[in-house]
């Protein structure tokens, strides 16, 4: 009996060590983040006059590498300012935003933080009077001349611009497998009707799910691109400024189109991340996927080549529209070190800073004068469109609606995925606007 107990205790000990090893994984992430800070401190330690604390959720992958590249530019330009990188890992920013919310409530703001440009920042932080308007910086640096005219209203409130966009991603992109399309004799669809015809042909041809989709937020992503295609850019933008009502007939039409699109998607969507959905297209299990252009980064990462492995176009019915999202940095109203924060924002908006960040992150600069030799085939096509297209905002990625509104719409979409009731869905969307207004 005693030996058994000993064996048991021994095994428990081993298990505890395994558990400890597992939990130290999560510690590693923090250490890496802290390690990054340390490196930057040593470079700036030459003459440490002031410091700037920048808060973000860029802790891994191309995002963290891009931030590091921009920090190098910053340190070269302002060697006497120490850069404090307060990045919080996890949940695509959910954790970071929760931490930021509690810091702001405790009146302990970082000098500058990352946020999706648009209502995610304005509706939450401007509403709470936490941000300083940046018009003076835009005037001083001449940024209004190098950023698209249609972008500025989407990142402003009452004529005040509240953030400096560092990068631009496009959300209305249709990705497709060229081999599958060629075999089925299908062209890249240009309109919603073409799209439905193509999906139907593929389904009749025996493809179970011609359109690959992932977990619930990618459904919202699909929703925003289909609504834009169905309603057009003016009505889409009108939904968010109140000039188009959510119970209008054109919304009903858009929801019907969305409901129809969903019938061509995979049944296991809820179990897949966006990368998995992209993989289905590469594998040829599905022909299409609608996802932001970070999908291209994933395609390249797994060794697929543009044109042979994957092709792209604007989501059917949205050609000439650039549905954008952007990571941007803000100036905290009660920034502990305002001058250092402004120095950081100057770098974030500069050509040098953006050309350091974007090629690494796999996005295009918000400025239209980026150095074209630094970007790949897809990104060059996106840069061309960015300079000429009508710019509209993304819902899923925080441009057009604040967090409250977005989370209510997310619930409505989740409920619609369960019951498929379009009328109920529209009623829930109307209620979502009221609840968050």
């Amino acid at each position, binding site marked *: 009996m005693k030996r*058994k*107990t000993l*064996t*048991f205790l021994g*095994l*428990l000990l081993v*298990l*505890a060590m395994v*558990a400890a090893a*597992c*939990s130290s994984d999560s510690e590693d992430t923090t250490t890496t983040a802290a390690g990054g800070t340390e490196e930057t401190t040593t470079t700036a330690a030459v003459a440490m006059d002031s410091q700037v604390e920048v808060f973000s959720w860029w802790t891994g992958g191309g995002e963290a590498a891009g931030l590091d590249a921009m920090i190098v530019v910053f340190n070269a330009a302002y060697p006497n300012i120490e850069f404090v990188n307060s990045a919080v890992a996890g949940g695509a920013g*959910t954790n970071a*935003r*929760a931490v930021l*919310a509690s810091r*702001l*409530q405790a009146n302990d703001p970082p000098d500058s933080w990352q946020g999706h440009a648009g209502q995610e920042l304005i509706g*939450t*932080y401007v*509403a*709470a*009077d*936490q941000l300083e308007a940046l018009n003076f910086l835009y005037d001083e640096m001449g940024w209004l001349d190098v950023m698209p005219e249609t972008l500025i209203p989407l990142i402003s409130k009452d004529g005040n611009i509240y953030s400096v966009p560092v990068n631009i991603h496009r959300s209305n992109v249709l990705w497709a497998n060229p081999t599958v399309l060629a075999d089925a004799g299908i062209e890249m669809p240009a309109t919603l009707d073409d799209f439905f015809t193509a999906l139907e042909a593929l389904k009749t041809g025996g493809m*179970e799910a011609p359109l690959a989709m992932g*977990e*619930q*937020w990618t459904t919202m992503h699909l929703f925003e691109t289909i609504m834009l295609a169905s309603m057009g850019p003016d009505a889409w933008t009108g939904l968010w400024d109140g000039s188009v009502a959510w119970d209008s007939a054109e919304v009903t039409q858009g929801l019907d189109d969305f409901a129809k699109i969903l019938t061509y998607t*995979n*049944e*296991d969507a*809820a*179990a897949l991340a966006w990368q998995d959905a992209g993989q289905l297209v590469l594998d040829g*299990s599905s022909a299409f996927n609608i996802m932001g252009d970070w999908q291209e980064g994933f395609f390249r990462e797994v060794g697929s080549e543009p044109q042979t492995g994957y092709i792209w176009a604007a989501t059917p019915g949205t050609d000439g529209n650039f549905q954008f999202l952007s990571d941007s940095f803000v100036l905290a109203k009660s920034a502990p070190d305002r001058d250092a924060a402004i120095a950081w924002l100057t770098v974030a908006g500069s050509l040098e800073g953006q050309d350091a960040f974007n090629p690494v992150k796999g996005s295009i600069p918000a400025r239209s004068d980026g150095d074209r030799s630094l970007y790949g085939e897809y990104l060059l096509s996106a840069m061309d469109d960015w300079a000429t297209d009508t710019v509209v905002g993304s819902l899923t990625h925080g441009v057009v609606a604040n*967090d*409250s509104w*977005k*989370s*209510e719409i*997310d*619930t409505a*979409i*989740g*409920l619609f*995925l*369960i019951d498929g009731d379009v009328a109920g869905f529209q009623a*829930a969307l109307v209620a979502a606007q009221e*609840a*968050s207004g």
Partner: protein
Amino acid sequence: MQTERETPADIPVPKRKRFRMENWWGVLWVLPSLLAVMVFVYGFIIWTARVSVSAWKGLTPDYTYVGAENFVNLASDRRFHIDITNTAIFTVVFVLGCLLIGLGLALLLDKGIRMEGFYRSLFLFPMAISFIVTGVVWRWLMNPAQGDRLSGLNLLFDNLGLDFLINRWYATPTWGIAAVAIGAVWQMSGYTMALYLAGLRAVPEALREAARVDGASEFQVYRSVIMPLLWPVTLSAVIILGHSSLKVFDLIIAMVGKQVALDVPAIYMWTTTFDGFFFGRGAAIGMVLLVSVAVLVIPYLWYSLRQDSDG
């Protein structure tokens, strides 16, 4: 000063003083945790209760009193209805699954199996893993993909020719949450086994012998002698498993992420508070959770405390 400190030995004051000092040391040792509990448990319960009857929405606190409005809204909130249904299904599958499997394993081990310690540890091990790990593993095992993309358990069934068992697991409409509960049963049934095994070992051998002498069959011994003695164990197990199933959060996040179809109150509370900044509503969900756990735990605590003092 110095003269005052040299207190003559025949005065009883120092003795009393020392006695009181010892008393104070005790209080002093307990004080930090007492304060922490007062602030971080009871203080925050009161604060949450206050927020739950406020109109707070957005980043800036807003303590405008709105009465039961948040609770009334929850009552007609379709997502919250799904949460309640999911919690009910999850709790039933989880608690019953753990009790049946736990009891079964305990009875088998109690029959004097060889290498009992080995099996006991084996069954207990899942409990030492965090729900996050369990969630990730079962997410793969119960992959709902069909057709050419079968994987995990479905692929196993396919290879074994048990095609009728292939199903969509957690992607099943309405009952998907039961699949999530299977992961939880796997994790906690070993613990239930340990509870039952302890209970079984506490049944005096003499009682079993007496029953056998009276001519009871082995089945009757279990049914009429042992099972009634295991009731307190079952009660404890139901309380422990039941209250943890009301609070389940991490397992679901790890296994299926945030999706309304598999939503539970704890996840709704988190997303609506920190993704949507509906602090009032989030606090209201928190209070509902607190009360439902209290309904389960308080009678049990009261019962066992009374038993202790009686004993």
